């Protein structure tokens, strides 16, 4: 069995079935799902001779997944943007930090799935690593960061900021980058269905560099949808807006906390 075939099998085991099935049919058709149908000879279609097609696929997947990405990131990004200074530049800086951290999360995931794909075929126990556990942990961590962000956003640091950067992640001066990075990284690791679908696709690639490139282009495609968030910079900032944003952050954090706990307990996250 060729290494790429093994990686593919491993990725099929680890990838969320929900995520895979949630992918568009065209993408799904390309994914290695029916193990018994994939033949070693078919790995030729993953050859590096087809990068333009492959990478336009990554861009297209990213563009198509954009609404899901902004839906996933919206609850985190919108309130945190609203606690920032008004203006195009502060928002652009915040968004850049957030998206960069999100890209870092994507790339870390790309490396992990690419490598895990090879490892999983040798370590069957890794097949059992439940997505729900990972998602639950990420959601709980995200909730904690949001709560801390909402708390620390009340400290509008002026000339002197004696608190640590982590304490002041929501502050309105130079320490806001830490908050953007923390939130961006966590949303980047949120394993939403399009993200995992891209991961499954990337894992089929012959090299880790190609996987990283694939994910980068996927990221570019999704990030186009984040441009309208810059419009929030036009909204005036006053006590009302910041208070609303902080309160919303707390509510969203509580929801993510409940969701995360439910996932860890492998319970349904809804009453029905």
């Amino acid at each position, binding site marked *: 069995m060729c290494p790429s075939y093994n990686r593919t099998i491993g990725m099929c085991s680890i990838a969320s079935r929900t995520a895979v099935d949630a992918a568009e049919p065209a993408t799904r058709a390309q994914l290695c799902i029916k193990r018994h149908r994939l033949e070693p000879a078919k790995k030729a279609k993953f050859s590096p001779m087809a990068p333009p097609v492959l990478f336009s696929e990554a861009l297209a997947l990213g563009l198509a997944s954009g609404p899901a990405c902004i839906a996933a990131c919206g609850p985190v990004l919108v309130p945190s943007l609203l606690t920032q200074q008004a203006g195009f530049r502060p928002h652009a800086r915040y968004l850049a930090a957030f998206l960069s951290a999100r890209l870092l999360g994507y790339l870390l995931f790309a490396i992990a799935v690419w490598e895990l794909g090879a490892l999983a075929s040798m370590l069957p126990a890794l097949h059992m690593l439940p997505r729900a556990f990972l998602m639950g942990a990420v959601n709980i961590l995200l909730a904690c960061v949001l709560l801390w962000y909402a708390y620390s956003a009340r400290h509008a640091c002026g000339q002197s900021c004696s608190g640590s950067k982590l304490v002041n992640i929501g502050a309105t001066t130079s320490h806001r980058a830490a908050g953007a990075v923390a939130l961006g990284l966590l949303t980047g690791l949120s394993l939403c269905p399009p993200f995992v679908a891209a991961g499954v696709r990337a894992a089929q690639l012959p090299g880790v560099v190609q996987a990283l490139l694939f994910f980068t282009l996927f990221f570019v495609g999704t990030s186009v949808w984040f441009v309208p968030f810059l419009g929030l910079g036009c909204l005036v900032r006053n006590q009302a807006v910041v208070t*609303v944003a902080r309160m919303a952050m707390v509510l969203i954090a509580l929801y993510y906390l409940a969701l995360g706990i439910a996932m860890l307990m492998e*319970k349904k996250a809804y009453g029905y």
Partner: protein
Amino acid sequence: MATKACTPGPAPAAPRSSVRALMLTLPIVVWSLLMFFHPGTNTDWRSRTAAAITALFMTALFFMMMRTHTTYRWRRLFFVALGVLFPVGFIYNLVLARGTMGIPVEEMIAGRTPFCFMPIPTLILPAALTRTIVFPGSILSAGGASSHAIAAMVGLWLALTLVLGKGWCSYACFFGGIEEGMAAIPARPRLRKLDPRWRYGPWAVLLAMALLSLALFEPAYCMWLCPFKAVTEYVAARNLVGLIQNVIFVLLFAGLVIVLPFLTKKRTQCSYFCPFGAFQSIFNKISIFDVRIDQARCKSCNICQNACPNLSLSKESIARGETLISCMKCGACIDACPRQAAVWHIKGTQVALKPERARLMFLYAAWAMAILFGGSIIAQGIATILHFLA
């Protein structure tokens, strides 16, 4: 701004003569007859009796509004009746149709979950992005307990909002009457000092629920935070999470709708929590009617601010001569003002030039809507009570 001593202002307007008040009430009498007794309605004696009682009730209240030149306490009577009688009729219909207040999944699949106006703001983003209504109802009527399909409720909401703006929360909402009734019970508030920043709560809930509804593709407010699930319907709990959801509903209802209004004499659910109210506030920008403060008469006694049940007046807004965007047009501040400085107003016109004209125009529109929507609900509640009594 320093508070000036409240010197007696101009003498309050003498009550209108009964004849004149009756003349002004005549259009409402005609409207009531049209709304309650048009052909095809009231097929049994209970419905006819309930319709007659309701028509008389609404007409009498309007008559008193005309006679006494006051609005708030008469409107409040209607609103409390609406808030109390809505669950009566609604729960009875639910039990009749499916035997329980809990929504079984079968009803959701069949699209027969009754659609109320509360999820409207949280459904906009998913609908805009995916053309999908994230609610287990039907666009057009599917029968059963759902006599109000989504399209019908949205049409009604749009029409009433065009007329009333955020006056919806004083003349149409069938949830607010319970807390308004609780707030009316004590003579004095027992809890006066609440952080004024809590009044941003509705906006925060709106923002959070809109974003979460899009992310999770579910009506997040209905699933987790609606206090009125305690007196209408809820997803029947089948596991621990469902139980937690129902406990949240009951606690929110008890806290925001019963206890806090009683302690503060404010509509605390509306002022601190309701995301639909925050959404409706946006429509106050386009509504032609509003409430203004005549700076020539105002002595900054802040009686209007204390009287407002919705925290829609602040010292800054009074100094500007206007209410905050959350004003529900209930008339409490206007009736409370000892100097008639707070007045009904039509945008574009001079403040306090002919406030009674503005009041009349607003009340004709608002009361017509109240009879159309709230009146039919009150009649249904009365008919349900008659069903049990006789």
